[in-house]
């Protein structure tokens, strides 16, 4: 497949890197330096030019391209690029990244609007990530499969957690829950019964919604099981959507915004949120509002440093968890190292979402673990699959190493995958797969 990527920023480069192995990738960027450095880093063709102009797109041979990904930082440029590409090649599948949710709403209202075939709303996506992280105490990442019946969650195990030091066999006392993988020092380990869980490991579990929740409560070292008191610092678009999504879950979050007029606008459009006009670094104010008793603080200011400061200050005053939005990808680990519990990077989330979508295979839903080291994918079992009618114990022999059956749903019912579970046609299987063997594994279904 020939893919044209317009915009070689963090998002574009990251997508280019993940697609370069199996596809012909052309990257277009207006910045000559970036174009040059990318050409040496990744095996792609890089072109300097304006992605919204006919000339550049023709140079990128858009007429022969199967897919165009517009991933610049500017919404309007992305939309115009998609629209322009469609005028040359109407068969080209266009993907656009947008920040402003109003474009996403228009596109959802009339699919195909702006000449865009698939749209990824960065801010909304980030807010959704934050909200799902808030929903499960201690979880770093959460993803839903099969219409929400199956959940994948990633947890960091700290030394006080009851399962730290236990073997998988000992820890595996939760019904409908599979320990799919461990991430230790950045490496993915496929565990067996005797693998011992160590402190600071990240555990990837797959299971029914209830069992994941139950597991989350068990492994978390905090007392409260359901976070109800959420404080959002900063009324950025991400902060706004986080509040809105929390409202729709029946929570009554608080939101701090410094700008008078903007605070008023937010208060008008968020009926279930208490909006406060103040500076989030005003200690006296924070103490008066009992920030110390807050379950989760979400720092979503426009500036990474300020977000870090707000998150750390709230933690210092006694807030249970701090989630921060980090715009610069390289800061993610740093933030988590100095005390932010979860750092969410909108660019990473966007790149993941787009990469997921571009993977040409039968997988219906994909979650990416630890910078592309492993994936959790959902697959429907085909009639022609050689695995149909065989128990998992045998089926696993035909699959490459590094594949774990996380969950199965059959006729919308959750089925716990055991060695003797027999695969049937139309089963939805959620697999944990090591990065190198994805294509090989999915081919079997």
């Amino acid at each position, binding site marked *: 497949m020939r893919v044209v990527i317009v915009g070689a920023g963090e998002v574009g480069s990251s997508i280019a890197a993940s697609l370069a192995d199996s596809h012909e990738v052309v990257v277009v960027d207006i910045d000559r330096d970036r174009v040059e450095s990318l050409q040496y880093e990744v095996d792609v063709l890089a072109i300097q030019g304006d992605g919204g102009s006919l000339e550049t797109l023709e140079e990128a041979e858009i007429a022969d391209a199967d897919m165009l990904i517009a991933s610049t930082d500017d919404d309007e440029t992305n939309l115009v690029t998609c629209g322009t590409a469609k005028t040359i090649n109407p068969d080209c599948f266009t993907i656009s990244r947008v920040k402003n949710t109003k474009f996403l709403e228009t596109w959802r209202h009339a699919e195909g609007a702006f000449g865009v075939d698939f749209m990824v709303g960065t801010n909304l996506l980030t807010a959704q990530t934050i909200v799902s992280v808030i929903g499960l105490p201690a979880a770093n990442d959460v993803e839903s499969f099969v219409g929400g019946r199956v959940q994948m969650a990633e947890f960091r195990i700290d030394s006080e957690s009851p399962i730290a030091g236990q073997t998988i066999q000992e820890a595996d006392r939760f019904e409908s829950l599979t320990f799919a993988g461990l991430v230790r020092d950045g490496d993915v380990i496929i565990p067996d019964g005797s693998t011992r869980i160590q402190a600071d490991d990240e555990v990837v579990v797959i299971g029914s919604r209830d069992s994941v929740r139950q597991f989350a409560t068990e492994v978390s070292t905090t007392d409260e099981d359901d976070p109800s008191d959420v404080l959002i610092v900063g009324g950025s678009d991400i902060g706004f959507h986080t509040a809105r999504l929390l409202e729709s879950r029946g929570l009554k979050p608080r939101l701090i915004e410094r700008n008078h007029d903007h605070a008023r606008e937010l*208060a*008008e459009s968020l009926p279930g949120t208490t*909006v406060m006009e103040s500076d989030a670094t005003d200690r006296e104010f924070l103490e008066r*509002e009992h920030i110390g008793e807050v379950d989760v603080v979400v720092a979503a200011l426009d500036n990474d440093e300020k977000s870090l400061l707000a998150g750390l200050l709230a933690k210092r005053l006694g807030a249970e968890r701090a989630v921060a939005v980090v715009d610069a990808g390289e800061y993610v680990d740093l933030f988590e190292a100095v005390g932010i519990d979860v750092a969410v990077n909108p660019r990473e989330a966007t790149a993941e979402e787009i990469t997921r979508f571009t993977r040409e295979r039968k997988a219906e839903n994909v979650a990416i673990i630890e910078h592309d080291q492993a994936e959790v994918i959902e697959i429907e079992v085909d009639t022609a699959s050689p695995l149909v009618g065989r128990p998992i114990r045998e089926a696993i022999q035909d699959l490459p190493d590094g594949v774990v059956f996380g969950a199965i749903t059959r006729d919308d019912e959750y089925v716990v995958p055991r060695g003797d579970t027999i695969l049937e046609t139309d089963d939805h299987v959620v697999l944990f797969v090591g990065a190198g063997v994805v294509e090989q594994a999915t081919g079997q279904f």
Partner: protein
Amino acid sequence: MSRIRVDWRSATSLVGSVLKYLAVPLVLPLVVALGYGQDVVPFAVTMIVTVLLGVSLEQLSDDPDLGAREAFLMVSLTWLAVALVGTIPYVIAGWGTQSTLANPVNALFESMSGFTTTGATVMGAISFDRHSHALLLWRQLTQWLGGMGIVVLAVAILPELSVGGAQLMDAEAPGPGIEKLSPRIAATARALWIAYLGFTVLEFCLLYGLHQAGYAPNMDLYNAVAHPLTTLPTGGFSPEARSIEAFSAAVQWVIIPFMVVAGTNFALFWRAFDEDGRVFSKDSEFRFYAGLMGVLSAVLAGLLFSGVGPGLATVADNVLPIPGNAERSLRHAVFQIASIVTTTGYASMDFNTWSQPAQYLLLFGMFVGGSAGSTGGAIKIVRWLVIIKSLKRELFTTIHPEAVSPVRLGGRTLDERAIRGIYAFTLLYLVIFFVSVALLAVNTARTGYSLEVLELMAAIAATLGNVGPGFGAIGPMNSYLDFSSSSKLFMVFLMWIGRLEIFPVLVLLTQAYWRS
């Protein structure tokens, strides 16, 4: 001195346009007079006067152009001019007879009370022996014209008003701001009048139907026409001396829902017709309105049923004892609450015979008023709702000083300026109320007519709020006749500013309006 900055010629010229059309509704009493073989002179003369006056005022400007300032002047003057013209039939008909309306001050009071849908009367005796059927029908008709608004009607039918129409309606229509139902203001005005006319006809059909079915012996054709004309505008005039007490229980039950309708935002009916009936349950003002009337009625019914309510004095012959009778206590309680809260002013019995707690409950009701966009008077439900909500907000921000919490009404947030306007109106209304009570007390004492505090308060609340009847000497079966001329003129002023919701008239009294 700088020159006048208001285009008073345009405004007055448009008043003339409205005035000349007043001849059209005058046809109705004229025809009735012919039918009954009564004197047609009062109406014929009035028609001639209003057309001549209207046409001559129109000459003041060839191409009247309305701005925001002119709208206030035009609306205020229209109501004054219409009320003045409306006095002519009373004076001519009463000339040389014993009628109290032969006195121009009394006639003006009656006319203003009619057009502003107040329903306070200075007629010495309301009976067909003293007054012709035609004249009493004219009295009913003035309320019907005033109900949905003379200017709204003018906007609906006069094309020259379409440009400044929204401002005119804003100045006249009850409640803060108007709700445009269609892009064209004339279409909105027409929609409101059609809904209004529709309900009037429906009430007529039901009342006359009751008569034909034998449940309402004295609700004859004349009464069945006359009463809807004063129910839907929340007016309260009745050609019967004893108001609705004169009719059967069935008639009283039928009138109750129509009073409730009259106090509802008419735009809601239009939207219910367009969309579906759920607009009522979704509208926070309507919910509050219905809930408040329900609570007040329940309390009053309890008072009446337990006998705390009615005293035993001077109960009319046809009113059966109430305490201990569930249907009667409920009927009189619901009827009277609906009548007072919507500012209609009908009486299903003489509530002067009720005890003080019940009367104070009604006095409270006089300040509530109908919904915005209804035909009711007083402060209006929506204002109270906004005040309650913003007071709650004040309490919340006392604890959380940094909280930004807009006041919401039915999912929409209210502009802070609108809230300030509502506070200002309500405060001004109450200040005018108390100052007027004091002024009236001084004036009545000066002229040797002594009233109790409750009576004085009721007189002001009933005229400023366009309710009509008060308590005691000005109770529902009595009249305002005994006040001195100066007090009556003062109350004419109160009815006028009450109907236009104070600001459009009061702004005319400021220097800034004319000069800057």
